C-alpha cells in the first residue's frame, strides 16, 4: 500500500512557499530595480542569487544555523512561542522559499527591466498613482516573465531536497516531501513505490512548464 502523505505534504509545502516567494520576490525585484546606488545593488543581488549557486546542503547548513534551536530566530521562536522550527513542517516551507526565491527574483527583475521606463513616466505625467503604475503598467507588461519566474520557482520548491533534508529532516508524515520519499524508498529497496512518486513529480513538473509556456505565449499574442 503506497503512502500518500508525501504527496500531500509536498503539495502543501510547494503551494504555501510559492505564495511567499511570489510576492516577496516581486517586491524585492522592484526594490532592486529602483535602487540607485550600484554598489549596494550588486551586493544585494549577490545575496539574493546565492541560493541557486551554492550547493543546497550549504544553504541548509546556513538555515540550520539561523533557524536551529540555538540559532537567533530558532531560539526566539522557542522562547516566545514554545515552537521548534527545525524538523517541523514549516521548516520545509522555509527551505523551499529560500531555494526557489532566486528564480522568482531574477525572472521578475529581468522582466521589470525590459519594461520601457518611458511607460512609467508617462503614467506619472498622466496622474496615475505609483500603486496603479506598479500593477497596471509595470506588472502587467512584465507578466509573461513574472509568470515563468513563478512557475520555475514553484517547480524548484516542489523538488527541493538538500536544504530540506538539513533543516526539516525526513520524518514520515511530517516533513517527508516527495523528493525525500523517493530517496527513502530507493534506500529501502522499494523501487516500485519510488517509481510511483517519480511519475507523480514528472507529471506535475510537466504541467507546470506547459502552463508557463501557454500563458506567456497567449499574453504576447494578444498584444501583437
Amino acid at each position, binding site marked *: 500500500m503506497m503512502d500518500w502523505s508525501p504527496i500531500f505534504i509536498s503539495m502543501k509545502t510547494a503551494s504555501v512557499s510559492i505564495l511567499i516567494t511570489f510576492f516577496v520576490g516581486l517586491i524585492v525585484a522592484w526594490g532592486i530595480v529602483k535602487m540607485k546606488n550600484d554598489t549596494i545593488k550588486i551586493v544585494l543581488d549577490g545575496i539574493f542569487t546565492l541560493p541557486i549557486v551554492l550547493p543546497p546542503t550549504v544553504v541548509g547548513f546556513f538555515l540550520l544555523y539561523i533557524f536551529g534551536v540555538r540559532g537567533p530566530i530558532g531560539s526566539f521562536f522557542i522562547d516566545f512561542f514554545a515552537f521548534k522550527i527545525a524538523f517541523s513542517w514549516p521548516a520545509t516551507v522555509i527551505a523551499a522559499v529560500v531555494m526557489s526565491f532566486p528564480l522568482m527574483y531574477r525572472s521578475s527583475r529581468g522582466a521589470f527591466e525590459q519594461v*520601457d521606463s*518611458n*511607460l512609467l*513616466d*508617462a*503614467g*506619472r*505625467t*498622466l*496622474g*496615475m*498613482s505609483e500603486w496603479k503604475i506598479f500593477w*497596471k*503598467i509595470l506588472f*502587467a*507588461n512584465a*507578466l509573461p516573465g513574472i509568470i515563468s519566474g513563478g512557475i520555475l520557482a514553484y517547480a524548484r520548491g516542489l523538488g527541493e531536497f538538500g536544504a530540506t533534508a538539513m533543516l526539516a529532516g525526513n520524518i514520515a508524515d511530517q516533513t517527508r516531501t516527495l523528493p525525500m520519499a523517493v530517496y527513502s524508498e530507493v534506500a529501502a529497496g522499494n523501487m516500485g513505490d519510488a517509481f510511483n512518486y517519480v511519475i507523480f513529480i514528472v507529471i506535475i513538473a510537466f504541467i507546470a512548464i506547459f502552463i508557463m509556456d501557454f500563458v506567456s505565449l497567449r499574453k504576447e499574442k*494578444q*498584444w*501583437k
Partner: protein
Amino acid sequence: MDKSLKVNIQKKLKEFDLKVDFELKRGCLGILGPSGCGKSMTLKSVAGIVNPDKGIISLKTNEETTYFDSDNKINLKPQKRNVGYLFQNYALFPNMTVEENVACGLSKGSDEKRVSEMIRRFHLEGLEKRYPRQLSGGQQQRVALARILAYGPDVILLDEPFSAMDAFLKEQLRLELVRMLDDFDGFSILVTHDRDEVFQFCDDLIILDKGKVIAQGPTHEVFENPGKVQVARLTGCKNISRVEIIDDYHVKSIDWGVEFEVSEKISSGITHIGIRAHDFSAAGKDEVNVFGTNDSSKLEKPFEWEITLANGLWWKVDKKIHEHDFVIPEYLKVDPENIILLEE
C-alpha cells in the same frame, strides 16, 4: 492675469552643466539643439520626471502653481503638475486597448463621455478595442495626443515627436499635430534637432548648446539674425567661414579666399560670416561680391540643384522635377545684405 510658464533651472550633468532660463507667455516654444545638449533634460525637469539641482519652475494660469522651487524645497510630483508629455515613441501602454489608454489618466468613471469625445475628435472610431501594436504610426500619435488631452493638461511637452519616422509620414503627422495644437489654448514646448519643425510650430525659440542657451527670441528673428556661429549652423546656414576684417564694410573670408562687401557696419567682435545656400545668384563679372565658379560640381535632387564650388561654398537652386540640365553660370554673387555677420 497674464499667463506664463517660468523656467529657471540648473542641473549638473556628466559632461556639462545645464543652465536654462526662459519665460513663456504664449503658444509654443521650440528648443532646438544638437543631440545631447540638454534639451530633453529641460523638458523632463518641467514634467517632474527628473529633478534639477537648483532653480524655479512655475506656471501662472488663473492661479499660480509652483512646480519646483529649490529655495523653498518645493518639488511637485509629476502626478500633480498637470502636464502632458508626448514621448518620442509615444509610450502607449502595450497591454491596454486604445480606449483604456485614453482613459487611464482619468479618475475612475469620471466620465466615459470624455473618452468617447476624444476618440471622436482624434478620428479613432472603430479602433477602440485595438492594441497599440496593431496601429499605424499616425494612429499611435493620435492615441497619444488623445490620452494627453483627455487629461486636460495646462502644458504640453513634445519630446522629438517625429525623429524616428520616415519623411513621408513625418510630413503628414506634422500637419496633424499643427492642427491639434491650434485647438489647445495652454502652453506647449517642442524639443527637436530639426529646424523645419521649430519653424513650423513655434512662435518663440531657444537654442541650446552644451547646456547653455545661445540664442533666444521670436523664431523668425533668430533665424534671420542668428548672431553666433553655432546658431547659424543650427538654423541651417550651409556656408560659414572665418574672416579677416578689412574695413567697416569689407571682410575677407579665410576659408573661401573671397572678399565680400557687407551692408551692416562690422563691429569688432565679428569673427565669421555666413551665407545661406539659396542666397547666391548669377552675375556679371564686374558686380559687387562676385566670384568665379571654375571646377564646381553639381548634384541633382528632385526639386533642387546642389552645387559645390571649388572653394567649398554650397549653392542651392530650385528646379522643376522634369528639368535635368543646368549650366553653372561663370560668375556668382551675393547681395551685401545677405551676408550674415557672426560672432564665435
